[in-house]
């Protein structure tokens, strides 16, 4: 397909530590098209953030960090690119919205200066025109009286405005792929809604692909087109968003959805029992086996591949292995 913007194939990020190899990301594949929002959900420590850092090659420098697989961005494999070429891609073609807006702006520079740095690096823009870009970005992300605000320091911004500033920074290079790493986690609910609206609007305006990394299923339901559920470094289920919520297949996804509170529902929530496995001590077999209510023998022998249960719904669970029956 032509409009596939990002095609991640069998991406693995392993960390060698003294205790053994930590398989933080272990063979995940997904695609993002232009104008599409992919949600990656999973609990803390399941490898979501490492995935985004691997795509941008922010991990993989040290000898103990091993990144393998393919990350095809606009048809080119980012993992084999030289660092010099990566510098040109980061910030201009792929923008990253970092996790915590409170700390992802440098406290010693004005917000405008930080946004202006992007065009100055990538387009060799003059100070003046870069400053104009910065103001335009701040306007775009809906910051009132942007001219004055650009001249202020991060600590003079409120949480929601800082997040807007961070988004503005990620957008300043006019990227075709935007990776948002839990952009709303640190914000209160009203600001969350505004930021999500903003991202939808930006998607419509720029037709960029967006990867939305989050642990909040509410955020996914709100803006994503399709969802990949990650568990312990693997994608366990992938489906369009309506399909996933209406018809979850993987026991883990089911568990996640059951543990969401519903308004007016007096039933007790059912949390997913147990803890995710230790990533440096993984046994053979399905990683969810220890917590799975439907576990059977085969689950302990080999990790299940993704089985298609529908044209675009795939689940890594032997319950859906049709050949076995």
């Amino acid at each position, binding site marked *: 397909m032509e409009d596939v913007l990002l095609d991640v194939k069998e991406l693995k990020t392993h960390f060698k530590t003294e205790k053994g190899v930590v398989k933080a990301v272990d063979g995940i594949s997904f695609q993002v098209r232009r104008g599409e929002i992919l949600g990656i959900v999973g609990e803390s420590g399941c490898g979501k953030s490492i995935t985004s850092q691997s795509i941008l090659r922010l991990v993989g420098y040290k000898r103990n960090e091993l990144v393998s697989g393919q990350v095809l961005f606009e048809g080119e494999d980012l993992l084999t690119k030289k660092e010099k070429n990566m510098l040109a891609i*980061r910030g201009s073609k792929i923008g990253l919205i970092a996790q915590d807006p409170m*700390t992802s702006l440098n*406290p*010693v520079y004005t917000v405008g200066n930080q946004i202006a740095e992007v065009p100055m690096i990538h387009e060799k823009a003059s100070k003046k025109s870069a400053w104009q870009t910065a103001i335009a970005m701040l306007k775009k992300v809906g910051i009132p009286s942007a001219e004055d605000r650009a001249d202020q320091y991060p600590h003079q911004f409120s949480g929601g405005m800082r997040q807007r500033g961070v988004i503005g920074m990620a957008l300043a290079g006019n990227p075709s792929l935007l990776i948002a790493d839990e952009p709303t986690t640190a914000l209160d609910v009203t600001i969350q809604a505004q930021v999500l609206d903003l991202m939808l609007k930006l998607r419509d305006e720029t037709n960029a692909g967006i990867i939305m990394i989050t642990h909040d299923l509410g955020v996914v339901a709100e803006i994503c087109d399709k969802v990949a559920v990650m568990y312990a470094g693997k994608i366990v289920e992938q489906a369009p968003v309506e399909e996933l919520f209406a018809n979850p297949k993987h026991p883990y996804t089911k568990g996640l959805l059951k543990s969401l509170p519903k308004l007016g529902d007096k039933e007790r929530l059912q949390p997913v029992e147990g803890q995710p496995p230790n990533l440096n001590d993984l046994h053979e077999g399905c990683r969810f086996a220890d917590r799975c209510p439907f576990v059977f023998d085969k689950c302990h022998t080999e990790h299940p591949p993704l089985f298609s249960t529908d044209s675009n719904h795939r689940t890594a669970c032997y319950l859906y292995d049709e050949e076995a029956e």
Partner: protein
Amino acid sequence: MIDFWKRFKQNHMAVIGFVIILIILLTAIFAKWLTPYDPYEMDPVNRLQSPNGEFWFGTDQFGRDIFSRIVYGARISLQVGIIAVGFSFIVGTIMGLIAGYSGGWVDNLISRITDVLFSFPDILLALVIMAILGSSLNNLMLAIGIVYVPIFARIARGTVLNIKDSLYIEAARSMGVRPITILWRHILPNAMAPLIVQITLSFAFAILAEAALSFLGLGVSPDTPSWGIMLSEAKDWMELSWWTAIFPGIAITLAVFSFNIMGDGLRDALDPRLRNEKS
């Protein structure tokens, strides 16, 4: 810059410190026109005169005018302080930045070098360096500079390690900023506050170290009008004539004190997190 000056002005103590330093600096520059006597000239007839209309600060055991010597001494002390501390600040900070940012064996190498330098007492290390280089004013400044390199290296490294993993550095990396630019533009300004405080402290130590080394005969030659030498010579005459020790002592204290309070003010004015809190 104007903004910076406005904020600096709000701190009255810092302004006082700055003014005193300015006065000392001007004194050092225009020493020739400010002094009634030649600071080297001995006058046995008028030895150990107490302060009077003729000799404002009195005279020392050779009959040299203490006021003139203090005015000329500002030159030596400022020179030693600025050059030695400047040397250790630049070298130490660069070493610390590189060590902290690159990590791995580079960090190990630089850290071990600073550990070795740290393991010697300050004055002993300076003594060894002076003994190797021979005594002259330039070597004195170099020796004091080398002695204070590890302090700056360690402070810079520690702060870099702290800042390196913060999200705004990751954000900068994700925007495609080069490592060297990250180090220079994003990390260094955040690491300046503790370094500036250390500069002002080291400046005080440098003036004292110059005095100590000169006293031991390894610094500038004994007839040079340096506050340190004057103080150490005066210790033999203190009971007899207090003015020989008091005035150089006041000069050192004043210089050290004003550098310290100016340093505090600088740090506050340079740190944007503290901005607008007083206004």
